[in-house]
């Protein structure tokens, strides 16, 4: 994913980083709220799962998940500008990791 304007190399985080893990949990909860726990577990969703192909979400489900995240991080994470800069192919290939990294980087930049 090349379109991560707020994700500087030194702002990247990984599993084990408390903020990364917390954001990961929040993103998971948003997905589970839309697709249900049973389906989420059945898909064996991981950080590198794509929303479109691996989790097989419809665009209206992706929309619902993004709205939940927009509400959760209102005023701190600019999802709309981030999505705006993406090519269609990037949207299709969007992974959980992309979203978590973007949120973490946005929160870190805000705190800096």
């Amino acid at each position, binding site marked *: 994913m090349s379109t991560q304007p707020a994700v500087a190399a030194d702002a990247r985080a990984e599993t084990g980083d408390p903020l990364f893990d917390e954001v990961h949990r929040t993103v998971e909860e948003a997905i589970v709220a839309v697709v249900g726990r049973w*389906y989420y577990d059945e898909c064996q969703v991981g950080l590198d799962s794509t929303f479109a192909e691996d989790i*097989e979400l*419809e*665009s*209206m489900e*992706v*929309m*619902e998940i993004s*709205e939940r995240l927009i509400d959760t991080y209102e005023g701190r994470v*600019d999802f*709309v*500008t981030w*999505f*705006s800069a*993406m*090519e*269609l192919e990037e*949207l299709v290939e969007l992974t959980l990791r992309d979203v978590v990294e973007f949120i973490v980087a946005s929160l870190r930049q805000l705190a800096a």
Partner: protein
Amino acid sequence: MATVRANGVELRVNRYWVGPRDEDRPVVVFIHGLGIVDHSGLSFTLGMPLASTADVVLYALRGHGRSEVPPTGYHLDDHVADLAALLDALAIDVPVHLVGCSYGGAVATRAAMLHGDRVGSVFLLDPLIASPGWTMMIRAPMETAASVLRRDHTIEEVMDLLGLTSRRKAEAVEARARRFLLGTSVLDDLQTEPDLGADDYAAIRCPLSAVFGTGSMMYPLKPLLQDYVPHAELHEIEGVDHLGIFSLTREVGQLIADHVARHGAVATAAPAAVAPIAPGG
């Protein structure tokens, strides 16, 4: 996302605005096509990219997406009444710039006929043009889908019919299609839709632009639109079909941004690379 009650129906609405709130911006309202779609795809690909220069509104038509599915009220003028009521509910009292996609193009042009004071301009993306017998083009595939849903069928048939590889998506689409096609008056309403013609289109005074894919089933409607609306500025994209044109998000997005910049006094966005598009008409 908000749910807004308009014309007696709960409509799901998204509104995007990036940047300072203390400036005047044109209001751009996207209207999606008819069927099993809603506005969510358009939100990501065309709506959000406009949000740094415009106040962008997208909503799911009645019977679509997460909007309410009333059993009746699927004539073109019902959708136009919903749109007018939605603008009232959102307290939008300036002329808006409508972006009508596919069937949404017919809604946008009809809104420009009936509510000329509320429509600042119209941009049509591979639109359906309301004209004598105009609903046949969309009724036929919808009747086919309805006939499959009425008889015993497997989910694999639905997957084949829609070109889907995901069983889960096919089940979701089938549920929505069953609710919409078999649970509402949409097919009857399409069949009894009044014809529109040159006299109706003469009421359109606002700027109107459109882009057609030359490989689209809508492309033969381009000269008709030019006849009906002589001041229309028409474009075409070579070799692109009806679905394909919605994938050309950069090119189409730039055309919409240019249109709104010209007719809505919006600051022009940084120009992006635009594929060659032959002005038509």
